């Protein structure tokens, strides 16, 4: 069984995203530790990319700051090594196809295995193209996490059937970023996912407030928060850890409001 499933073992999962190296790797290490200490069940580590086409302005800005600061894929692996000295929490990488492909897919994934990265999310690799990465993921025991979107409709079944680790449900059209309201009929997407998937599902994109976290966790097995956390790091810089910890705590509490899936809420 995948180590990622551990994140979903204690009720609804709260998944926190960080852009590695924004503003530096010491800060990233500190905010990740703060998030884990305050209840984050799974950590998504973003490896910066020069042209992150699925990101909104907040995470784009974080990528740019990190790259300007000299972050590289090798330095991110170094960070994972330091985190793994004592942290058991499941870790997944989120980055773009070219970062992995250019590093050498085999070499990248063997490093993931060696250092203890449990999953990989590539937002620019849809179902049709996953064969570029899947064999190496399987060889090194790393889950390739699939995404479904509000536009996926008839594609949901085949994506969910082959999903590994967890299934990432994109809440809204567009790029990452905080949204005041999420209008997608997520209830029916989650139902379609659950019909086929053997792994848990988590909803991400646009979630920033505890009430949104509560609402989304009533539908799915977990919630993913990225831009709101990255925004805190942007605001408080090297001093961000306590603020991130406090925020994660409030979000984790909201996520736990629902211990059982609520059937309606469509």
């Amino acid at each position, binding site marked *: 069984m995948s180590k990622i499933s551990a994140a979903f073992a204690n009720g609804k999962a709260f998944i926190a995203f960080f852009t590695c190296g924004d503003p530096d790797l010491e800060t990233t290490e500190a905010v990740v530790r703060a998030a884990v200490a305050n209840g984050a069940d799974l950590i998504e580590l973003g490896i910066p*990319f*020069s*042209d992150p*086409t*699925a990101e*909104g302005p907040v995470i*784009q800005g974080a990528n*740019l700051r990190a*790259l300007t600061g000299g972050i*590289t*894929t*090798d330095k991110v692996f170094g960070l994972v090594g330091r985190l793994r000295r004592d942290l058991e929490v499941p870790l997944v990488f989120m980055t*773009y*196809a*070219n*970062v*992995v*492909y*250019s*590093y050498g897919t085999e070499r990248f994934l063997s490093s993931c295995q060696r250092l203890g990265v449990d999953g990989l999310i590539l*937002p*620019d*690799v*849809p*179902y*049709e*193209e996953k064969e*570029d990465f899947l064999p190496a993921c399987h060889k090194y025991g790393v889950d390739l996490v*699939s*995404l*479904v*979107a*509000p*536009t*996926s*409709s008839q*594609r949901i079944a085949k*994506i969910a059937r082959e999903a590994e680790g967890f299934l990432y449900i*994109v809440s809204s*059209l*567009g*790029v990452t970023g905080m949204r005041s309201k999420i209008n997608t009929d997520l209830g029916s997407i989650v139902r379609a996912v659950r019909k086929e998937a053997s792994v848990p599902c988590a909803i991400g994109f646009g979630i920033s407030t505890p009430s949104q976290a509560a609402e989304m966790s009533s539908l799915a097995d977990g919630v993913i928060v990225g831009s709101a956390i990255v925004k805190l790091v942007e605001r408080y810089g090297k001093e961000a850890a306590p603020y991130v910890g406090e925020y994660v705590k409030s979000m984790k509490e909201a996520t736990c409001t629902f211990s059982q899936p609520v059937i309606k809420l469509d």
Partner: protein
Amino acid sequence: MTNPNGRFGIHGGQYIPETLMNAVIELEEAYQSYKDDPEFNRELNKLLNEYAGRPSRLYFAEKMTKDLGGAKIYLKREDLNHTGAHKINNVLGQALLAGKMGKTRLIAETGAGQHGVATATAAALMGMECVVFMGEKDMERQALNVYRMRLLGAKVVPVKTGTATLKDAVSEAMREWTSRIADTHYCLGSVMGPHPFPTIVRDFQAVISKEVKQQLMEKEGRLPDAVIACVGGGSNAIGSFYHFIPDKGVRLIGCEAAGRGIDTFETAATINTGRLGIFHGMKSYFCQDEYGQIAPVYSISAGLDYPGIGPEHAYLHDIGRAEYVPVTDEEAVCAFEYLAKTEGIIPAIESAHAVAHACKIAPDMDRESIIVVTISGRGDKDCAAIARYRGEDIHE
């Protein structure tokens, strides 16, 4: 040349967010059902002929030929098309297709502004809304085209991220398409991006080589020895090459923007300096660093200032069917001035890269041989920038 997964050899594919997958699948299905539809083609041909002014001329550049003293040089005059570039060929096709799909809004990226102007033109003609994404740096160096787009009723959105050039405009157009799909068609301007765009754009641009073949047969009764075109993403080049690909005796030469030289970091010559990667929806060659970060490329030409190349070009390079040569800013500017003085034709600075290479190879070819150079666009838009390059400040 295309297999069902949109691959050209190992290149191409659909490396895009899941959110866009049904949109590109829907586009492919629509294209498959209309591309051989007689009514669609009748409408498109009418637009190309009556509105865009096709067929474009194949002009024998007699003075240039004499001056260079070698191969006969013919210029394929895409600059004479309505809106002043080859871009209109693709845009009229895509806009017509988008209309059939029930889309009411066109979005586009633009570098030099020629594709943006063409898209704004088609949108005005067909009563569609139009939003064009353009790098802030390009808006400065192509101010005339920004005004033209606005005059045509389009909204021009400045893109300030990254290098604020074509690559960033493509990223921003993709982001916009992800957020609004139902009524919006992304009218991609080159033979790049996810399948089916490289195939659709190539098919709509293939009219260039189809005409060249016919026109040269009428004038000379034979095929050319070489076809030369500039390559950024590569739409005018693939259009110029396409119908000659099976004719192995015809050299196909793509001219990449070398900027200040391929031994400097200020270059945009992808085949000459890039390596295999995955970006903007496709697997192809890209200028990138050792960690796969896309390089901030440079060229004097906003239309060639792109870190990648279309997947079919990458494939033609792999199999050795086409050659890709670097041409520097300085060589292109000299060719820009040369064609103006020799033939009275002011080419786009993009096309001047192709002219420059023709000037290099023509003298060494015998007088019986024939070179076709595609003049992909006209150079009015570049006059201020070239004057600046030569140290002269003119007010547009």
